[in-house]
């Protein structure tokens, strides 16, 4: 180890590069960064859970009686849907975070390092999954307090949360791509919600589609959000078929297969 001292008495020590870490190790480091963000920016958890709590309470007590006869009956229908909706909406924040990061020099540093190029995004996903699990747990707890009964028990809840993570993963790529394409975080949010609101409301998340016009029913039937909500109801409440779960997983799967390479291409385009 050679040392050279500069005028200020600061010693610059030459340090060699250790053995190159694996792609997984790189990704986990970025996951650790996401966890640190929770520690340093706890207010993001507030954004994360307040909207779904509000939605759950408002829909249950304001519309519940009119839609399903009683608030408790409606909750039985609505709670699995609000879980899907929450994951979809929370993905928007992840895209905003990425857009903010890209606006600074931080990603230039990451890009000039000899690491797995997708690692920063894998790390974002780790943060997303944690967020979805936290938000999901809070909503489920509130649901249970209000009288929601998951008939399938603990196994059903575990399976449901597994589906939730898969949905979040697939949705995450959409907003990572938006975050890469759009350089203003607020525009990411506007575009994100413009795209998500019709998708979430024109689905079976809040009401059965029977009273909707035929053309809308046709859309609701193939809307991936509907497919996800249906599978979630089945997993938590009982009666889920393999076909339903498979259909719910289709959109996340397609999104990952198409958008992960797109992400890499957009990111490395220089």
């Amino acid at each position, binding site marked *: 180890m050679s040392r*050279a001292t*500069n005028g200020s008495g600061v010693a610059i*020590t030459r*340090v060699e590069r250790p053995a190159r870490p694996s792609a997984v190790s790189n990704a986990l480091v970025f996951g650790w*960064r996401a966890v*640190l963000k929770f520690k340093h920016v706890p207010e993001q958890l507030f954004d994360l859970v307040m909207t779904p709590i509000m939605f759950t309470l408002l829909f249950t007590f304001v519309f519940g009686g009119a839609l399903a006869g009683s608030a408790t009956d409606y909750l039985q229908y609505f709670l699995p849907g609000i879980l899907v909706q929450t994951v979809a909406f929370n993905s928007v924040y992840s895209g905003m975070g990425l857009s903010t990061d890209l606006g600074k020099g931080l990603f230039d*540093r990451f890009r000039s390092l000899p690491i797995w190029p997708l*690692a920063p995004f894998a790390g974002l996903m780790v943060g997303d999954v944690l967020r979805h699990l936290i938000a999901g747990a809070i909503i489920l707890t509130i649901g249970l307090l209000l009288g929601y009964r998951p008939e399938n028990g603990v196994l059903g809840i575990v399976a449901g949360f597994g589906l939730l993570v898969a949905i979040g993963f697939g949705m995450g790529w959409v907003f990572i791509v938006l975050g890469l394409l759009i350089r203003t975080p607020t525009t990411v949010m506007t575009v994100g919600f413009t795209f998500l609101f019709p998708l979430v409301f024109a689905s079976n998340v809040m009401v059965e589609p029977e009273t909707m016009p035929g053309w809308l029913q046709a859309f609701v039937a193939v809307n991936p959000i509907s497919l996800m909500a249906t599978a979630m109801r089945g997993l938590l409440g009982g009666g889920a078929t393999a076909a339903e779960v498979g259909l719910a997983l289709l959109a996340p799967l397609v999104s990952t297969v198409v958008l992960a390479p797109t992400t890499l291409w957009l990111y490395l385009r220089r």
Partner: protein
Amino acid sequence: MNERPSPAASRLAAGATPAVSARGLTKRFGELVAVDGIDLEVPRGMIFAILGPNGAGKTTLMRMLATLAEPDTGEASIMGHDLVGEPDEVRGAIAMTGQFASLDEDLTGRENLVLLARLWGFRGRAARERADALLHEFDLAEAATRQVKAYSGGMRRRLDIAASLVVTPSVLFLDEPTTGLDPKARQGVWRMIRGLAEAGVTILLTTQYLEEADQLASRIAVIDHGRKIAEGTSRELKAATGSGFLHVTLGDPGQMHEVTRRLERMLRSQVQQSPEGGIVSTPVASAVEASEVVAALVAAGVDVSGFSMGSPSLEEVFFALTGEMGEADDTQGGDRT
């Protein structure tokens, strides 16, 4: 941590390949040719400055060399690794500190460095020790557990440079390392850069401060409008513009335009006017030529109230090369970014 050859030894081995070698690098953004056919050769262990006004193409050139932007045409190698063909090898040999702090503002200084140390492959305790060593070296130990958003500009810049040194790079790119810093913080960064050069790191820096290039760099490339318009040591650049500048103070500032025309005719060189002091300045080849010029002006009836001759400052060199003052660029609204 392995042994590396001492700086002296690496200088001896420098005959092999230069640290940075570029030929005809070009980058276009739509209509704008940001970098227009630049050749560059930086020997190992040198501090090399790229000097130019805002929007000259300095940052784009740097980003291409740091694998952040792909050249449209031309080729370059860093430590013998081809920029386009072997980007990963290049990334293993370089580090870049951009113009805007490349740090996570929400994390603490220490967490930022631990994050990078882990990405480089230091594990667990080794990563933390590497971070602490850097914090100590850069006089940031006391701020280690504070979030970066609470750092001052100087501290942020120090941490940003420290972040580039988690593994000692062979080549360090510094894009305008002292822009926006107060004079004291600037001196600190200069000391740090000299210390790194002593440790054998090749440093390529961009600057729009002529003084900075003059103070730090062994060689300077002057670029403007994406082209390299001159290169050499500070001394060579000064010599290239003639032996010095002649400054003539006019007793009657009303004669300024007439004198300017006369000088341009006589010397066929650019003349700079400073109307406030009634001074005209122009590069001259020698003291003899300067005295002839002054005599000719007096003979023509010009009211010369004083004259002086100075070795050109780098600023005057820059003026002579580009036809505009380097640091006056902002006030002229000449931002061409």
